């Protein structure tokens, strides 16, 4: 895997006449070099002899650094073929998996990447049992699950038919986080629905305990389910971070703490670059609680990836790219003490502290948030009131609105001014926008935001031309911070 992209590595094995030995060439890192001993033990466990001769394995392309234990299985197959002992000679397969000393194939961390490569070549793909179901999601991939090296040899040789894949039950959307649990908060609920429908970044400002985190955690549940291709993309990113994620059509939700390092949020790290939280939230939601507490340089480094939808990490000799089309949801206190604007508790912040705090929360990064909403403490009657509308119902509307956007092109949250200019607005909408700018409640930069949000509101109502009603509602989410 290079970034979240799978690259094919050809395994060549040679058994020579020189004295006994086992060499791996082609920029293997320590985990790959150690494969030698696993491969030797696994081959012996199949009942064969390991040759007392010179064994050389070449990983090609030779200039691409290799890491991880998934080279075990293909290396073993290569050695067997070179020994002329097994019939796989001549067979073309993609194989990946870690071997245990007893010859069993324990895991395939790059199963999805391997399946993608195999599907492209129309070759069968051998992966460990437990990772087969995930790999089988890749369209067009023929997956042979294998439990042991011996089984892999038999399957390739055609001695044994490949087993059926036992697909796990589809992961249901996590019902523990349903919008129906959120009492009151009609304003924030509406903002959440619009954010989901248009893929807009959302900023929530409110005192501690008003339910900002609770609201954010319910966003994935009202987003449209991932398509098969998107689920594969997400699984690829997670695989490159060496994290297990059950393959699911539920968009991911990541919530890094504000003390997290730059590398863990944006991506990078020492040695082999890994995707950060931003990429793990690809096609899903990145929730940043206490936005003001994140170091400013971290926020700034998120700007470009958010815009481009990918993170590029430059390394000596190469650049690595991870996808990062995440929807950002941020929460912030209105002031350092947290209670400005709260109706029950008084704010204790001085004017200077307030100014400093707001300055941290401003600037170009905040421009990314199309929707800004103030979350207030719900009163007791709302808390005890009837359950609100459930996620399922909201999601139906979101899916409908999204499909309208997909017909036009990209989702509204990502539309540029040129896309907006193609979107019709009626004269009343234009005059209301003008009125808002003249009244000083909207800056020039804000106009595009309002237009994007109004477009989504119109999509939710299945209205073709944006009118003043939609503009007026969008203005309610402008957030005059």
């Amino acid at each position: 895997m290079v970034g979240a992209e799978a690259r094919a590595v050809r395994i060549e094995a040679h058994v020579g006449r020189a004295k006994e030995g086992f060499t791996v060439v082609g920029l293997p890192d320590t985990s790959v070099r150690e494969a030698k001993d696993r491969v030797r033990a696994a081959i012996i466990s199949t009942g064969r002899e390991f040759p007392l001769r010179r064994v050389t394995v070449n990983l090609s392309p030779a200039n691409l650094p290799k890491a991880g234990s998934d080279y075990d299985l293909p290396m073993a197959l290569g050695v067997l073929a070179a020994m002329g002992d097994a019939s796989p000679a001549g067979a073309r397969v993609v194989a990946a998996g870690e071997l245990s000393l007893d010859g069993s194939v324990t895991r395939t961390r790059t199963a999805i990447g391997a399946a993608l490569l195999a599907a492209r070549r129309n070759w069968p793909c051998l992966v460990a049992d437990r990772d087969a179901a995930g790999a089988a999601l890749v369209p067009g991939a023929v997956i042979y699950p294998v439990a042991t090296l011996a089984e892999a040899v038999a399957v390739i040789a055609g001695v044994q038919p490949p087993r059926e894949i036992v697909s796990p039950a589809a992961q249901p959307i996590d019902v523990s986080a349903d919008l129906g649990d959120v009492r009151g908060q009609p304003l924030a609920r509406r903002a959440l629905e619009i954010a989901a429908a248009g893929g807009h970044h959302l900023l929530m400002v409110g005192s501690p305990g008003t339910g900002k985190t609770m609201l954010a955690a319910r966003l994935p549940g009202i987003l449209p389910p991932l398509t098969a291709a998107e689920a594969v993309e997400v699984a690829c990113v997670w695989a490159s971070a060496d994290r297990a994620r059950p393959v699911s059509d539920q968009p991911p939700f990541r919530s890094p703490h504000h003390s997290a390092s730059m590398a863990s949020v944006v991506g990078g790290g020492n040695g082999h670059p890994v995707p950060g939280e931003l990429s793990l939230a690809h096609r899903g939601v990145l929730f940043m609680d206490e936005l003001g507490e994140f170091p400013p340089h971290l926020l700034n480094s998120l700007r470009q990836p958010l815009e481009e939808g990918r993170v590029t990490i430059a390394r000596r000799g190469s650049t690595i790219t991870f996808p990062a089309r995440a929807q950002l949801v941020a929460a912030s206190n209105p002031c350092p003490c947290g209670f400005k604007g709260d109706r029950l508790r008084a704010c204790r912040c001085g004017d200077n502290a307030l100014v400093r705090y707001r300055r941290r929360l401003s600037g170009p990064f905040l421009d990314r948030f199309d929707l800004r909403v103030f979350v207030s403490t719900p009163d007791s009657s709302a808390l005890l009131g009837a359950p609100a509308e459930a996620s399922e119902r909201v999601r139906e509307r979101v899916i409908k609105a999204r499909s309208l956007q997909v017909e036009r092109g990209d989702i509204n949250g990502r539309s540029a001014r040129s896309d907006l200019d193609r979107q019709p607005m009626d004269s009343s909408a234009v005059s209301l926008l003008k009125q808002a700018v003249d009244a000083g409640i909207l800056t020039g930069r804000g106009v595009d935001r309002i237009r994007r949000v109004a477009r989504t509101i119109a999509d939710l109502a299945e209205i073709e031309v944006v009118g003043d009603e939609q503009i007026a509602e969008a203005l309610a989410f402008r957030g005059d911070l």
Partner: protein
Amino acid sequence: MTDMRRTNELGRMLVGVSQAPSHLWVRGNLPSMPGVAIVGTRRCTEYGRTIARTLGHSVASAGWPVISGLARGIDAAAHVGTLDGGGEGFAILGCGVDVIYPADNRGLAGRLLENGGGLISEYPPGTPPAPFRFPARNRIIAGLSAAVVVVEAAVTGGALITARLALDQGKDVLAVPGDISRATSEGCNLLIRDGAHPVLSSEDLIESLERILGPSPVAASPISVSSTGVLLDEVLEQSDRPVGAVLADVVRAELAGRLKIKDGVVGA
């Protein structure tokens, strides 16, 4: 023309109208409350047209239905302003509701219908326009309105008739002052001399209307705003209407300068 219907729903509004018709013909909607009539001459100046449009916009933004006669000139400009302001406009016709006269304004009539307004007439469908029917329909205009604003009018003409009928029905008349040298302003200036409220600006008009009719529908709908403010969430919860529609109303009221939204609180 499948949407034409005959109704007596407006009977109560038409109580003070002489020889009130028992039924009206309607296309589209009926005003939900007495509206504000904006009327004037057909042969208007550019000044009058601009003012009529601006006033139509303000009245519509404040939430009152705007009522006029779909004639050329001031009437048409008032209807256009209403549409700009996102309000509901009602045209009272001197012919059948399917006949629409003058034909230039057919497009405008269609837009009124599309935007929640309506076409109303006491004459059955198919009735052609006739000179005597226009002064007669003016009493319906006055009848459906709580106040009449005359933008530009000569001393002779329908607008002044409407104003006089409104006074007869005990309603307030407002007039836009104009050049004393211009014939089309004479009627308005005369009305002001005789006690009509002069309209000095859009804001002045809304203030006068609020004095006469009580708080504008937009200001009144998202519950009355106290000086300490009320949570936007509460405003939304107390309304049965969709969240989006209430938000839109609150923002319009904010733009009109009647309230302020800050930190999730709606304040005066």
